[in-house]
């Protein structure tokens, strides 16, 4: 296999003040051209993982240990100057809510020029580049859009602007944090189509963070499932959806509404709620909700190990009994 584009190794993220674990010793990689989905619920650590790659962890939260290796340097220990040179240029990010991610009092064109300025690319070609970036993401009348403010645009159009901003320097890796969650389904479908097309054109890698299994099923090559700050399962999108081995992945898929049921059919629920990551450091975090849990699950943390289909962190994998 080729060399990974980015490699996250034993990453642990904690609160700075009282060292509460938020992300617990996770490792994964993204290969050139590959799209990886990170699926998890709120508090599972998926967003913090993404932000740590960019060095944008919120105040009060720190990456305590581990490495994030990108082209021969560790982004966790690299200088801020170096990280700044990579951000927006080689690795860029789109966020859930473009209304807060875009500057509300700056014209959209200017916000794209700023990206170029940050990387010393404000040359004679810059206006054409910005125009093309808008055109590329399907914004009608790019000329008019350049001099508009974010509030003049709909949610879907604002998300297109954010994608244009993220794509203008042709990044090697695009990190997307639930960019379609706030959108209506028909607009979500348009944005997914746009991103898929951009990926096909540019060959960029993608890290797509979401709580919606349906979205990644038709978008990515591989899926990472996170639960309470840990990776509980990794596999190709096909195996994760057809042969999930971790009881959490299995339960989550089973709990989703199906398209072939009769009305008034109950759902397969997982009892309980996800725990706080810092309270379950020495056990399997899913054990209190798991029907397969035994004594060892409550006393030991299972590590990710390969099985016939995926890699799962579980003492009692589902197997082929499906």
């Amino acid at each position, binding site marked *: 296999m080729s060399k990974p584009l980015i490699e996250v190794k034993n990453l642990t993220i904690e609160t700075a003040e009282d060292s509460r674990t938020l992300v617990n010793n996770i490792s994964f990689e993204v290969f050139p051209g590959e799209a990886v989905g990170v699926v998890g*619920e*709120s508090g599972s650590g998926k967003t913090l993982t993404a932000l740590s790659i960019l060095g944008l962890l919120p105040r009060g939260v720190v990456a305590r240990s581990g490495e994030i290796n990108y082209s021969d340097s560790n982004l966790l220990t690299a200088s801020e100057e170096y990280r700044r040179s990579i951000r927006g240029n080689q690795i860029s990010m789109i966020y859930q809510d473009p209304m807060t991610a875009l500057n509300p009092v700056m014209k959209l064109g200017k916000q794209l020029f700023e990206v170029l300025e940050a990387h010393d690319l404000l040359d004679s070609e810059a206006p054409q580049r910005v125009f093309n970036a808008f055109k590329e993401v399907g914004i009608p009348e790019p000329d008019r859009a350049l001099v508009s403010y974010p509030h003049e645009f*709909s949610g*879907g*159009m604002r998300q297109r602007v954010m994608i244009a901003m993220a794509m203008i320097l042709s990044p090697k890796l695009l990190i997307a944090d639930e960019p379609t969650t706030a959108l*209506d*389904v*028909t*607009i*979500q*479908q*348009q944005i*997914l*189509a746009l991103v*898929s097309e951009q990926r096909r054109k540019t060959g960029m890698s993608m890290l797509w963070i979401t*709580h*919606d*299994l*349906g*979205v990644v*099923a*038709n*978008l990515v090559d591989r899926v990472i499932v996170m639960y309470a700050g840990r990776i509980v399962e990794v596999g190709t*999108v*096909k195996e994760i*959806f*057809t042969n999930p081995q971790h009881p*959490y992945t299995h*339960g*989550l*898929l089973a*709990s*989703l*509404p*199906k*398209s072939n*049921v009769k*009305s*008034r*059919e*109950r*759902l*397969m*629920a*997982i*009892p309980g*709620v*996800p725990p706080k990551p810092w309270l379950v450091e020495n056990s399997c975090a899913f054990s209190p*909700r798991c029907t397969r849990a035994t004594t060892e699950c409550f006393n030991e943390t299972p590590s990710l190990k390969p099985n016939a289909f995926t890699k799962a962190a579980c003492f009692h994998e589902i197997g082929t009994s499906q």
Partner: protein
Amino acid sequence: MTLKIDNVGKQYKVRASKASINALNGVSVDLQVGQTLGIVGESGCGKSTLARLIVGLEKPTNGQITWREKPIGNKDSTTLKIYHSNIQLVFQDPYSSLNPRQKIGQCISEVIKTHKLRAGSEIQKRVEQLLLEVGISPDLQHRYPHQLSGGQRQRVSIARALASEPDLLILDEPVSALDVSVRADVMNLLFDLREKFGLTYIFISHDLSMVRHISDFIAVMYLGKVVEYGSWSDVLDNPKHPYTKALIDAMPDHENVGATKYEKALLGEVPDPANMPSGCAFHLRCPIATPNCKVQTPELILIDTLHSVACSELKS
């Protein structure tokens, strides 16, 4: 007939531009006791406005909503109070619909006191019973909303809605804000409560697959109008309106890995309700629109026993 929504319209005035927005336009739906009506549509389709009108939070501009043969929106406060105890609303976001400074037990007992449903000494027992009904331990009654998880908070909202002993619950995206792994649990609770108390539901959601699980009938709305109505199987297994078909295609599909349907994505966006297109409101985005759709406004027409569709291009 329990609930009759008859040709209801709701207009809002925009102060700045003096324009008016048609949030609802000639909506007619009936609902029988014990049944569940699913209402689906995207933002701006009027589904939440309809919920507010049914609960009586706002009055329709035209048309009438009747509940057990009595029109709502009556000024008479006693009638309104009876009405309110009969029909309750559960909101999407339990973070903002529960008072953050009120213990959850209090927030339920308040409802019982308002409607004078129990004698003073009985109230405490009733609160505990309601909490048990929704799967919350009565030990938690002295907690504040922020001390509970999202799923528990939504259960408390449901208990509060049940406190007035309603017949009809309007559920406005009740599980959309919850974590994926707790959604099914709350949905199953809604199934159980419907069974146990013979409740009638109006389930409002953008998620067609959830709607499928719970509804007997489904109304699909677009820009303030019902564009398709029928039994759950009519609408979801045999959809006729191009918008219903597009919604079904746009649902993220976890059952068919790699089966992208992105090429079928609807073009354009929902038009501004203050500046409605002529004719059929959907014609600008419709894959089968003809020049006629720009002129003619289609009416909801019965095409089968209970299945009706508002589309001029429908050849059945």
